């Protein structure tokens, strides 16, 4: 049985290794950061242009009113789910291998939610009136429409985002205290001092901390499932052929976990290299992660097939036409690419030799996410192109460069936030890695028969 991490690392060494990531990453870090900033610049430029000129520059039209913005919105929402999976669900299940990687996964959750939120804004025709969606007693005496899935979205995302931020922060408090104690001057010292909330590591503090952390974790899990179910209901509640599918909520949740796991693999590899975390983000952990991804991929494939089958054998001819159109019409290349990247490619992950082959995993994980992004696009665009009303069909609509620019820039935005986070906060949970080292070595020495009993 291979070990997740070496168990003879000294606690002080852990502190040193992790704190080093706050000080001096490899030079590639700065390259990534600069590229990310440039990408954000593209998106900001596109948005300014679109805001001033009107949504028309995105090249959507009256029958095809949604496009990449909503597709990418769902993509980012989906990506946020794996952080919760790793940090909350696996926490409750005592899967200890999560400990070195959950912190950055949780950060990924938070930042991809922030990115997703931006797409809602970018998508709105009148961004300056976005506050109409929020329910608050106002001088217009008007409420939003509580029946609309978009309002549910707003609630769900806002709740999920605030909970995720809280969860990320609370889980970080002991580590922030370590940082506070190890850094001696500068703005960071002040930052960590304030943020660690006077953490001293007393028994009482640890007891309260554990309880709080557990509470939020319990709270977060149903939330995560509900968020993507609600996003799915944006579509499932509609009458559009191709959207009006009962299995959408679990399908969306599975897709979300899938793309999130793939993204964690990608980021795992990047962080491992950039911040020299080889000791902590180890190949055995990667192997477990890959197996998890593979399992989810198969669940997703299954749900996908269920959706096709229910449409195919259902009596709704319009939805069936829609499916045939997807598979044979102008969107066919993307549709089949989605099937390939989403269902065929992950079969590779079943083979042991690929499970720890980082360069291959890096490429594959990105392709899996491409597939997941295509999935979202294939939900949105073909339905608009080939809906209920043949006169309004539009097979030629192609997103403009503005839309592509915004999608492109969103990756920069995410990367920027994420990279800044990793530089400012410990992206590996020091205290929990210490737990791994500590209790395992203890178990080895004193209670070899009992495992994981803490």
């Amino acid at each position, binding site marked *: 049985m291979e070990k997740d991490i070496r168990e003879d690392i000294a606690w002080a060494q852990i502190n040193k290794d992790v704190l080093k990531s706050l000080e001096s990453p490899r030079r590639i870090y700065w390259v990534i950061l600069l590229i990310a900033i440039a990408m954000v610049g593209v998106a900001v430029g596109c948005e300014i242009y679109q805001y001033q000129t009107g949504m028309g520059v995105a090249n959507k039209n009256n029958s095809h009113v949604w496009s990449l913005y909503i597709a990418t919105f769902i993509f980012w929402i989906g990506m946020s789910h794996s952080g919760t999976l790793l940090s909350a669900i696996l926490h409750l299940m005592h899967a200890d291998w999560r400990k070195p990687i959950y912190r950055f996964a949780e950060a990924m959750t938070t930042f991809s939610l922030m990115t997703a939120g931006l797409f809602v804004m970018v998508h709105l025709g009148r961004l300056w009136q976005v506050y109409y969606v929020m329910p608050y*007693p*106002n*001088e*217009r*005496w*008007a409420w939003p429409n509580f029946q609309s899935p978009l309002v549910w979205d707003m609630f769900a995302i806002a709740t999920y985002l605030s909970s995720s931020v809280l969860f990320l922060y609370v889980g970080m408090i002991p580590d922030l205290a370590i940082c506070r104690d190890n850094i001696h001057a500068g703005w960071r010292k002040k930052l960590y001092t304030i943020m660690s909330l006077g953490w001293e590591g007393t028994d009482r503090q640890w*007891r*309260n901390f554990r*309880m*709080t952390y*557990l*509470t939020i974790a319990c709270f977060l899990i149903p939330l995560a499932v509900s968020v993507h179910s609600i996003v799915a209901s944006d579509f499932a509640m509609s009458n559009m052929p191709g959207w009006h599918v009962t299995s959408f909520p679990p399908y969306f949740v599975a897709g979300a976990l899938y793309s999130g796991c793939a993204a964690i693999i990608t980021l795992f590899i990047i962080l491992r290299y950039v911040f020299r975390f080889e000791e902590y983000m180890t190949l055995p952990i990667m192997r477990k992660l890959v197996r998890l991804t593979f399992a989810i991929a198969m669940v997703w494939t299954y749900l996908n097939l269920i959706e096709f089958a229910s449409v195919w054998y259902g009596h709704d001819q319009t939805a069936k036409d829609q499916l045939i159109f997807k598979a044979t019409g102008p969107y066919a290349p993307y549709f089949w690419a989605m099937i390939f990247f989403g269902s065929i490619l992950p079969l590779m992950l079943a083979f042991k030799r690929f499970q720890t082959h980082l360069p291959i995993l890096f490429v594959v994980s990105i392709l899996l996410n491409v597939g997941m992004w295509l999935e979202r696009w294939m939900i949105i665009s073909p339905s608009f192109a080939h809906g209920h009303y043949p006169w309004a069909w539009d097979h030629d609509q192609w997103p403009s460069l503005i839309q592509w620019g915004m999608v492109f820039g969103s990756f920069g935005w995410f990367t920027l936030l994420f990279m800044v986070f990793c530089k400012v906060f410990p992206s590996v949970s020091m205290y929990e890695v210490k737990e791994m080292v500590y209790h395992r070595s203890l178990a080895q020495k004193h209670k070899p028969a009992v495992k994981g009993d803490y």
Partner: protein
Amino acid sequence: MYSFLRLSVLLVGLVVSAGSYAVKAAQPLTTADDLGPNVEQPFEFPHDRHAGDAADGGMEINCMYCHTYARRSIVAGIPPVQKCVGCHQNIESVREAPRIKKLFEYWDAKKAIPWKKVHDLPDFVRFNHERHIQRFVFAQGKPVQEACGYCHGDVKKMTVARRQKPLSMGWCRSCHMKDHRIDATSTKTSQGPNDCWQCHK
């Protein structure tokens, strides 16, 4: 486990107290006065002199004598110069007053006086004077100045009219949600319409 409960109780308590505050909190901008800016007009028109009480030196002219369209159009209308002159050509006593001289200048040039709007609703709003006058003045028998005053304030005490009420959507709705008697004799009441397209166009 107690601490787990403690946190939950705390959170629930927070939500409940915030909610109950919001439930009971007074709503903003319902009946409050909200004085508009002073509007510079081509020349000063003394509403107090025309519509004011006789005791205060006013003429007690009915609002609808000049704003004659109010009962049959969505706008109350500004009287044509013709109407001002109709009376003033026979009122020698003030003929030489600077304002009246100005009036006659416009009249002689056959030019409309460029009055500025004092109560200017956004372009997507349709406020129908006719409906309100029909309801409050003709059906309920309210005095004209009172009915007009619901929205325009006590114009008979002003010279140049100035906005008194907020004229916001919530302000409109605060009145529309009240029960009003349907006419002067009946005890039956009804509310103003609560339908977007009644006021939005």
